[in-house]
């Protein structure tokens, strides 16, 4: 019932070569084969966004993508955001703004918003809410997440202006 393929993939800057089942999802590959358990499954049907990672910079649902599809690609997960203990401005803003409660959806939201902010450096609140609408959070009511993203955009803008 199982059929395997060899893949090579860069995850958070590190190269891996593995033989994987063709039906293994990218999310399971990250969690089970590489031990990167920061990526969470919330629905396994592409609706909740909790498992979002970036593949070649693009935010994708790792429950809907197969590991073999990531062959020769570069993947970034939640574990690849911070440099050691130094949080990114987005992660820091989530902490400052109490933008997470249980934290289960947070990795997917951070990965989604990281991509969003790169493409939209000066978003409005409506833009942020729209971009966030593919991620479900049951704890926060979203408001603190929206505020954290807006604060990050502001921080990054000030950083650019200063530079």
């Amino acid at each position, binding site marked *: 019932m199982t059929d395997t393929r060899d893949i090579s993939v860069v995850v958070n800057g590190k190269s891996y070569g593995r033989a994987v089942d063709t039906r293994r999802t990218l999310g399971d590959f990250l969690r089970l084969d590489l031990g990167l358990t920061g990526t969470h499954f919330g629905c396994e*049907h592409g609706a909740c966004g909790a498992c979002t990672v970036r593949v070649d910079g693009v935010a994708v649902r790792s429950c809907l993508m197969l590991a073999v599809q990531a062959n020769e690609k570069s993947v970034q997960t939640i574990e690849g955001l911070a440099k050691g203990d130094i949080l990114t401005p987005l992660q820091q803003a989530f902490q400052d703004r109490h933008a997470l*409660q249980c*934290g289960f959806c947070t990795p997917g939201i951070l990965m989604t918003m990281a991509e969003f902010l790169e493409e939209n450096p000066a978003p409005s609140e409506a833009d942020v809410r729209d971009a966030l609408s593919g991620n479900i959070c049951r704890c926060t009511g979203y408001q603190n997440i929206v505020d954290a993203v807006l604060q990050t955009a502001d921080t990054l803008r000030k950083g650019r202006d200063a530079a």
Partner: protein
Amino acid sequence: MLAGRGRFVDDIVLSGMYAAAFVRSSQAHARIKSIDTAAALAVPGVHAVITYHDLPAALRERRLPLFVPHPTLTARMQHALAKEEVCYVGEAVAVVVADNRYLAEDAVQLVEVDYEPLPAVSDCKAGAQAGAPRAHLDLESNIVSRMLSSVGDIDAAFRGAKHIFRDEIFQHRGGAFFMECRGVIASYEASEGALLVYVSSQGPHRIKRALLDLFDLSDTQVRVVTPDVGGGFGPKGSFYAEYAVIVACAMTLGRPVKWIEDRRENFVATHQERDQYWDVEIAVDDEARIKGLRGTLTHDNGAYTPWGIVLPWISVATVPGPYVVPAYHLEMRSVLTNKVMATPVRGAGRPEGVVVMERLMDRVAREFKLDPAEVRRRNFIQPSQMPYDVGVIFRDGRKVVYDSGDYPACQDAALQTIDYGSFRERQAEARRQGRYIGIGIGNAVEGTGLGPYEGATVKVATNGRITVSTGATPQGQSHKTTLAQIASDQFGVPIDWIRVETGDTSKISQGIGTFAARTAVNAGSSVHVAAVKVAAKAKTIAAKLLDVREEDLELRDGYVQVAAIPGSPGAASDNARQVRKSLAELAVVAAGMPGFAMQDGAEPGLENTAYFTATQSTYANGTAVVEVEVDIETGRVTILRLVLAHDCGRLINPMVVDGQVMGGVAHAIGNALFERMLFDDQAQPLSTNFGEYLLPLATDIPRIEIVHLETPSPLNPLGIKGAGESGTIPTIAPIIAAVEDALSPFGVKILEAPITPQRIVELLGDAALGRTR
């Protein structure tokens, strides 16, 4: 959490661990004729396929535990795996254990269960009628409990009343839909008879209790650990069949076994709330003051009764709310249906009670052509009437006695914030532009901090570190921060000096868990009491060592030192540095020395365990006021503003409380506008993914405006009331009211929740044609 270093159950990997997947009933009600497991067992990598008959004897003999029995209840509890009858779609019939989940799921597909379908009860109202099919073959009636809540002379109240208004109200609340589905790992060390269980729960102690009883084990044999939990909202407080089955698998196979629920299973097998039919009438005098309220509640209990009648009971006890209701007579019927069990979800039946009362308040206002806010004002319990005995019995078995609160002030605060006074002008102006906006008010009183207790141990280790251990278990409520904050107040140290341990039965012997907005009240009070005692003991020991008076000492920055003398700060601080003892030194002294007697017969150790016991629930209150716009073409509802004024007593951490409130409000918005678990007439679930069951998204939730009032509770040392559900409970009612208000030019009446766009368009059409349905 932010860096991907959280540790949820599915992140835990034990050596040699197998994975399990369940075979679940595809039938709402059926007899199991046979189960053929041969093909599944033949799959390479499959180690076992277990049905009821393969379970350990202890588990075959027992049914799952009933958490809250009640004299009126005909209990129906399930076996860990169905024996010969299945009573809801999703009921566990068999389990497959394999090398990994992929293989286990392959094999699940190969297990053949031969069912003889039986008539199913899909609707609780139909199920309550004579001649209805039975939800279980051995039941005489689907009505498993009838309970009357009665206050005052209801007949006299209605006999003398000039104005009586009656409404039938249908309410549906969906499930919790925490983002992390359930999960459990069991590991059994046969040589020591030691069972270790990791489970995503709201309280490991109750899970442990259930396992002790089911498997006939002694207390020291079982350790249950709850690691990080991805949301709970009520249903993770239940004990589930899967937990018992996975433990049985681990015992049988001698390997650790993991089961992680997938989202489809979550829709059919995790407890949820559901349908309530209310038929109520209210009697008022010429001044619109309530004389009496009576009626019936028919409650959909689902297939078994793990929480007894807790849910409908809370609904019934919540109805009177912040109003003076001199006579009350509510008959509750809890009905078994062939659906997954209905047990508390955030709010736990309270939002439904609030909707009933607030719909009636709005009805009275409409009949009297009075401002809805004014009708409520005329009926509020006044602060001077506190403590106020409502007369009904709450589910903790005690009378509902509100301890404190200022309900008129709370409503006023909310109305002022939303600029209620100008709304009718704004509404008229909007209508001139062809826009339909409406406003609604919801008031609620919420029993919080339910007993019996939640304990806490506060301990200073010999290295000076302070640890707080409690049975309360966070699922994102920032309990650790809140409890550390309470302890740090006594020790004069920053909160990050305090380590809070939760969710492990090996850390504290007794625990109840997190539900009913009880942790800050119970565990918070225990932490306070224990920390006060430990701090006092530290002072006692230090006073002896330093030869000073205890009352001259203070705790600061990890030391017990002579307190600064007012007026001479410099001298005092010099003095303090010389005359002080670190908590580490004091803990060493308190631990005692081999061969030496304890000083003055003191108890060893710089630690204390307190089990704070509340004498009764403490009652928080809130007012939600909501402004909506309804698109009459599409039925789409946009929430323009939402103000929540609430009073949860003394606030420990406003940011945490605000976070709880905002999340709770979002849940209420889902309940009011989106969330509907659908079943067909044979009780087959029709909404089993997030495309069919809609949760509120960032684009659906407005910016929530929160106003805090602080009336400290006299019932606990910190004056706290619960906050975890305060956003949800008052907020469904005003959303429904606001939609109705927006559509008032069309004469639309809304006596149901949730109210979807499709239903709004239907109601508009009916109103235009003069129909009701």
